[in-house]
């Protein structure tokens, strides 16, 4: 009779502490996830910008007339404008097509337009890697059981990897 109360108190305290620890852990996870989602969005924005920069550089290169023959000019110019025009699902297909076009023509090795294009292409490759890297971390955390059980991701949409051919020209 004497020991009943302290035992109950011990159990209650233990449960309270457990719940407290658990909820701190959950809040912490949700926070991590939130930061990852924000980084995904930022990486996606950087990737978008890098892609636009490359297509603009490709277009300027074709407009400058340094590609030699007009067929190469038309091919690169068309692929660049298609990349700028396309949205959503077709977006990265169009970027792959632009990469393929840049590989088919003989690009000048020097000159301001060529330097701008190779710089833009390098940054695009980098931006895609960085983006997919943070998407992978985010997806890994989202796949944990506690995240789905306690709905820690909230209404944030699952980010997705971006795949396209971004070999340097």
């Amino acid at each position, binding site marked *: 009779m004497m020991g009943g109360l302290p035992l109950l108190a011990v159990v209650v305290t233990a449960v309270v502490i457990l719940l407290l620890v658990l909820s701190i852990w959950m809040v912490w996870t949700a926070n991590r996830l939130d930061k990852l989602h924000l980084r995904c969005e930022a990486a996606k924005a950087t990737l978008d910008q890098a892609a636009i920069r490359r297509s603009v550089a490709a277009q300027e290169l074709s407009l400058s007339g340094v590609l030699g023959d007009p067929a190469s*000019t038309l091919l690169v110019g068309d692929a660049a404008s298609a990349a700028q025009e396309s949205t959503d699902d077709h977006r990265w297909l169009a970027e792959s097509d632009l990469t393929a076009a840049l590989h088919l023509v003989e690009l000048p090795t020097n000159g301001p337009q060529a330097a701008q294009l190779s710089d833009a292409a390098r940054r695009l490759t980098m931006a895609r890697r960085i983006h997919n890297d943070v998407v992978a971390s985010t997806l890994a955390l989202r796949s944990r059981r506690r995240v789905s059980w306690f709905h820690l991701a909230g209404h944030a949409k699952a980010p997705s990897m971006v795949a396209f051919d971004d070999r340097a020209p």
Partner: protein
Amino acid sequence: MRVGLVCPYSLDVPGGVQNHVSDLAQVLTGRGHDVGVLAPGDEDVEHPPHVTVVGRAVPVRYNGSVARVAFGPRVAARTAKWLRDGGFDVLHVHEPVSPSVSLVALWAAEVPVVATFHSAHLRSRTMSSLAAVLRPTIEKISARIAVSESARSTLVEHLGGDPVVIPNGLFCADFSQAQPRVRWQQPGPTIVFLGRTDEPRKGLDVLLQAFPPILERHPTTRLLVAGHGEVDLSGVPGDARRQVEVLGQLSDVDRARLLSSATVYVAPQVGGESFGIVLVEAMAAGAPVAASALPAFRSVLADGELGVLFAAGDSTDCGRAVSDLLSDSSIRERLRHSAAAAVLRYDWSGVTDDIVAVYDTVLPAGRLWGRDR
């Protein structure tokens, strides 16, 4: 006169533009003109003596499809040499607004240039953003030919001006004299489909869906499918599937024989057609035509006067149109009769007259004297 023809696409792969250039070269040579053809292709394959291969073709995605073309500095150098050595009076380039040897030849040309536009599609964004670099080259064209009204309106929209319409040529006699094959005619009526079977815009799926309802009204009908590609019959119910015969890719002679055997030729294409030469082939072979109401097809069929039209992509309407045509032999006879007369304007004899008239128009006035026709 000496005529240089430039074909943008590899001659080793069949296609509308390639056939047109080869046939035109043949007809012009037959009329005593001196013809040279420049095109990409495989150097190891044997080509006729008047053909100069400019380099191996690479597949390129342009204007919504994959084209096999050649370009680059080496191609440009060879093209310039071909132009110098050829000493042509007229250069006739095909599909000049494509990343191909046609554009390269136009760029390098120093003689009057005639250009034929085959496609009914140009991306406006490309045209506007590249106008500054392309315009000076395109301005070198002395006379522009569009193969159809739809190709013409695309041209006017993007480049302005007033191009001449001269349709693609056809050797009508090859079709009108083709012998039907009994096993493609019997038993019962036959519906014919011709075209790539794995390309959705050719519309085979529309026809396959329309086929069971057709069978309800005409149980002995067979559907003959010819063309390159796999055929997916999984959507067709078992009884109907037995009435479908897949023939694969046919030779030119067999194509003509198949069309002349058909009770009805169906063109269920859902879009992207600029001309519809296969409709003209069917008409020349004496096959009554049922076609989707695309602008190009409407114009070939004179708004339904020379063939039956149905709503593009609508298998119910397609089935109804084909069934009605199968039920009424007097309509089929009337269509056959009027089509046979109408296709003559696509025959190479008249088409060549028109093209030579364009050549004459662009020749400098001095050349008109003392040239041989």
